[in-house]
């Protein structure tokens, strides 16, 4: 039996009869809610200055307030603020670094300011800063959203800024800015712009510089690496509220700090690339670089499979630490030396590796345990020197036992040595018997 259903009436009887009822119910709810939420938690009430106003006038007002212009794009008018900053630098070295950046392609530096974190559908980018470097100066074009309603125009204008062969340069853009922009294109049912590459400087900055910086925020990295300190920079956490305040009040001045902050961020992207290119790419120039940075670079080269360059950087960093300025801690230095020695073994430079391990072993300390174990391995399997291997293993054991006695057991080393010594003893006994 299949039958149609009669339409059900509104679930509240009487509701449909009285159009003012909803208003009265909302009024009571309002009275109730005001007691639940304290006044301080409430933002100031919205003024309907925006609604009904001529959209063109609003954009013009914003452009005038920020010293920008209204550009007519394919999707409608968009506010653009353009500034150039002299930035003498060379980027020629970048090609020699182990990062996926193709210098034949146009680099498009990009940073967004948004109404919140995450890329859920209710968060939008109200400001997109686009940077380009022409060899002498750095030009930042900022696309600003005058009103929610203008987003399609901003997205259309952004498409025009990003050629299909462009390589994006961002800071955390892989996880945040770009997915957010893609989400906005999806929401407006437009295909997101195509790009040829994306160089996210956040993971790079973490690898190279985090060891000497308090955190990995772009401003901190820029201050620590390029020595550029910002004055009166607007904290990022305040940015969304500034934009909402602009929407409510129509005061363009509220966004001036936000634009300055964004422009600094975009220029910083250029500066950081410049630093990498000038200080780290060239082996000669690298001598003046921070030894810790060179050590970090060694690891990046190694991960990229460029072992000769990795070994060169290890050597440079160790030499700088030993000759010029001491490493932050002895452990830092010895850990790096051990990594270098391990890479030497792995690339078949056994004599050099043995010398490196020997030097580490002589330095004592916890790294020496692994140095002696490495030497035991080398002597047992490569030099075929069982007695020497036994001696090295016993040296390691001595340190391990001392450590255990003072309450700092090195369990992994203990397990390794137990197995190793048992085998070496077994072999020694077998040899005595034959």
């Amino acid at each position, binding site marked *: 039996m299949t039958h*149609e259903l009669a339409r059900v009436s509104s679930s509240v009887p009487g509701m449909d009869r009285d159009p003012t009822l909803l208003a009265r119910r909302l009024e009571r709810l309002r009275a109730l809610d005001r007691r639940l939420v304290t006044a301080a938690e409430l933002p100031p009430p919205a003024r309907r200055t*925006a609604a009904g106003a001529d959209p063109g006038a609003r954009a013009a007002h914003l452009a005038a307030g920020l010293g920008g212009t209204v550009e007519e794009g394919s999707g409608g008018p968009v506010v653009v603020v353009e500034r150039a900053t002299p930035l003498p630098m060379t980027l020629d070295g970048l090609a020699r670094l182990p990062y996926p950046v193709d210098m034949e392609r146009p680099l498009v530096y990009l940073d967004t300011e948004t109404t*919140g974190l995450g890329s859920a559908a209710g968060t939008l980018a109200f400001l997109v800063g686009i940077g380009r470097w022409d060899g002498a100066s750095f030009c930042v074009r900022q696309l600003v959203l005058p009103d929610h309603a203008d987003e399609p125009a901003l997205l259309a204008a952004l498409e025009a800024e990003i050629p299909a062969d462009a390589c994006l340069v961002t800071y955390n853009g892989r996880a945040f800015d770009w997915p957010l922009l893609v989400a906005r294109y999806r929401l407006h049912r437009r295909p997101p712009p195509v790009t040829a590459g994306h160089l996210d400087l956040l993971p790079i900055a973490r690898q190279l510089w985090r060891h000497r910086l308090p955190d990995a925020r772009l401003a901190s990295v820029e201050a620590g690496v390029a020595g550029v300190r910002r004055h009166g920079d607007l904290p990022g956490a305040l940015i969304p509220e500034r934009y909402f305040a602009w929407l409510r009040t129509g005061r363009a001045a509220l966004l001036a700090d936000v634009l300055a902050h964004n422009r600094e961020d975009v220029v910083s992207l250029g500066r950081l690339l410049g630093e990498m290119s000038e200080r780290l790419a060239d082996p000669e120039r690298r001598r003046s670089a921070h030894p810790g940075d060179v050590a970090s670079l060694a690891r990046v080269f190694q991960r990229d499979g460029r072992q000769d360059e990795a070994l060169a950087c290890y050597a440079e960093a160790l030499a700088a630490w030993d000759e010029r300025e001491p490493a932050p801690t002895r452990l830092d230095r010895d850990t790096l030396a051990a990594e270098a020695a391990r890479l030497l073994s792995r690339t078949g430079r056994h004599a050099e590796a043995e010398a490196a391990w020997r030097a580490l072993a002589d330095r004592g300390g916890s790294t020496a345990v692994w140095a002696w174990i490495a030497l035991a391995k080398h002597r047992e399997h490569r030099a075929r020197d069982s007695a020497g291997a036994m001696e090295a293993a016993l040296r390691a054991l001595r340190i391990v036992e001392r450590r255990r006695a003072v309450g700092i057991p090195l369990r992994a080393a203990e397990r390794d040595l137990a197995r190793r010594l048992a085998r070496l003893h077994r072999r020694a006994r077998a040899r005595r018997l034959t």
Partner: protein
Amino acid sequence: MRLYASATVAEVLDRLLADPAVAEAVVADRTLPARAADMRPFPDWLDAGLRSGLEGRGVTGLYSHQAEAIEALRGGRDVCIVTPTASGKSLCYDLPVLQAVAEDASTRALYLFPTKALGQDQLAGFHELADAAGIEVAAAIYDGDTPAPVRQTVRAAGQVVVTNPDMLHAAILPHHTKWFQLFEQLRYVVVDEAHTYRGVFGSHVANVLRRLLRLCAHYGSAPRIITCSATIGNPGQLAETLTGRAPVLVDRNGAPAGEKRVLILNPPVVDARLGVRASAYGLVERAAVTFLRADRQTIVFGRSRTSVELLLTRLREALREGRGPVGRVRGYRGGYLPSERRAIEHGLRSGDVLGVVSTNALELGIDIGRLDAAVLAGYPGSIAATWQQIGRAGRRRELSAAVLVATSGPVDQYVATHPDVLFEASPEEARLDPENLHVLLAHLRAAAFELPFEPGERFGAAPADDLLAFLGEDGHVRQAADGRWYWASENFPASEISLRVASPGNVLIIDTGGDRPRVVGEVDLFSAPTLVHEGAIYLHESRQYHVDRLDWDERKAYVRPVDVDHFTQAELAVTLKPLEAFASDAVPGGERVHGEVMVSSLATIYKKLRLESLENLGWGRIHLPELELHTTAYWVAVDPAAVAGWRRDELDVALVGAGRALQTVASVLLMSDPRDLGLVSQVRSPHAERPVVYLYDGVPGGVGLAARLFERHAELVAGARDLVADCPCDAGCPACTGPRLESGGEGKRLASRLLALLSGARADIAGAPAA
């Protein structure tokens, strides 16, 4: 006589009814006739692979309800399928979905189940059918346990996404731009076990579906919705309220069934004056053991985790005494490991497990095959749930049996004394109110976050502009120059809504009994003073917890699991102020009203009551601030002229007693927990200046209970009058007007008088002294 000889169900029933203790307790004995299968051939358009896959599994045609459902879907309609458990309901949606995937691989479907376990069970069945049909289909679960890398794959490539309403609400809809492939190609939305979407939860889910359909429209898809419900009074209306669209109702079951005998047993009265009856467990045990000894597969339903364990122990002991099949009787409840549950389900299907004692966890659609007998320890709380549980017994051809044993609770006693309610009356209606202002506004915020509102765009019953303007006052939503309403806040509104509770500011319930503190649930603020005050026994998934500490400012209740034989009941000092009448109408003896009220409640003390006998074991004080609840209510204002000459104290006792009876009948009529409805009586209402009984919806804004009570006023009053009249007690008892001691022995007489007056008896007769 040999105790353990295998016997037929008919023989076991004879044996059982030969026992005088059972025979005397029988208050109803009905036989439901056998039903033949109503088969239809496979439709011509059915994919050849699907057809041969089904034939390979021995399916040669479709039951009529399956055929009707898939034809209606083929015709582009929504359907609502109402059939009992184990009637091949899943095929009604699996088949059209697989057909659509076979025709066009870009097709997407979304399956919603109220619990994770059901989703897993159904997905396994879906994969079996797809494999048999040789159809390549990417079907996956997307819930809180799905690992991050898998999530990405499901978003981009999952053709069938199985999830639950909570996940859809919090993780899928707000991130719809990452799911655009799903939204662009969504063909079918399956809403299974829809009868569970009632009350607050249902009101939320209806709004989640509104948001879903709104996004589908944005991305250019127009999915068909397949709603499946257990047998309830208003399945089509439920589906329409949930989805906002009128479906084709498919409610004639074409699956075959053997004859079924249903017995209702009411344990004997032990103390007639106080209305105390013997425990239900004795008769439950007697019935279950008789079936088990005869090698008949039996399921026993207990109402709580504790009663499941208690019954399991009693059954095993009884079977052990006579060396019965002890090891083949298992327990099944929330808190068992999934693997244990799967093993028991499999054992039931294969016959290795002879008996199972379960909470209502086995009431929903998990596949355990068909059993010989079902024994219900207590009325499950609704007619619909009773039939779901009874439906677990039922062979295709042979006779099966179901035995319901009433407890001494008021609702149980109502059913035991009015068995026609179960057999003749239509099952309860599932009530929900998607227009509840609190719920609606919360989801409107979430919807505005997801996509701006066009001016004049409807969200539910009406254009949303006024509500959006209201939200705009807090600055979270704004109307831009283009007239659209945009989300303008850093907040993530979906995270502020929990679908299972009514309003924000929930109290979290934290179990401190384990290695690490663990959140086991939450209750809404207005229920917290009575449910999780210090010293309360809080029930969650049939498990008991003791509330050690309630941190009111932090909204946290610290609990630990316990196993006790009592529960707690808090008393509220309640004052109620009517705010506005939405509708009112003259009725015999006065006026019925539906409207909005403000309820101020202060939890004062709590009592400890023994689980079965409701015996009072002690009490404690509650120290919590007063709360205000803004909700909807139904009330009956008594005409002062009709009760002229009544003493004030008489009127008070009459209003309280009649109110209790009305509350009990209301919960039977509306398929709600009696605690969902609050009761207040006023001898002289300060507003109406006359005697009034209020029944108010216990959640902020209400879920439509009050509106429905207003409509069913006459049935309600008649039911309450019969409940009191037919109760075997002499002067009022907990099962009708409340314990006699509270009313000085006059409760029953005075309440009867008032109810007679309200049901239209002439005042002079009603006012005559009771015999």
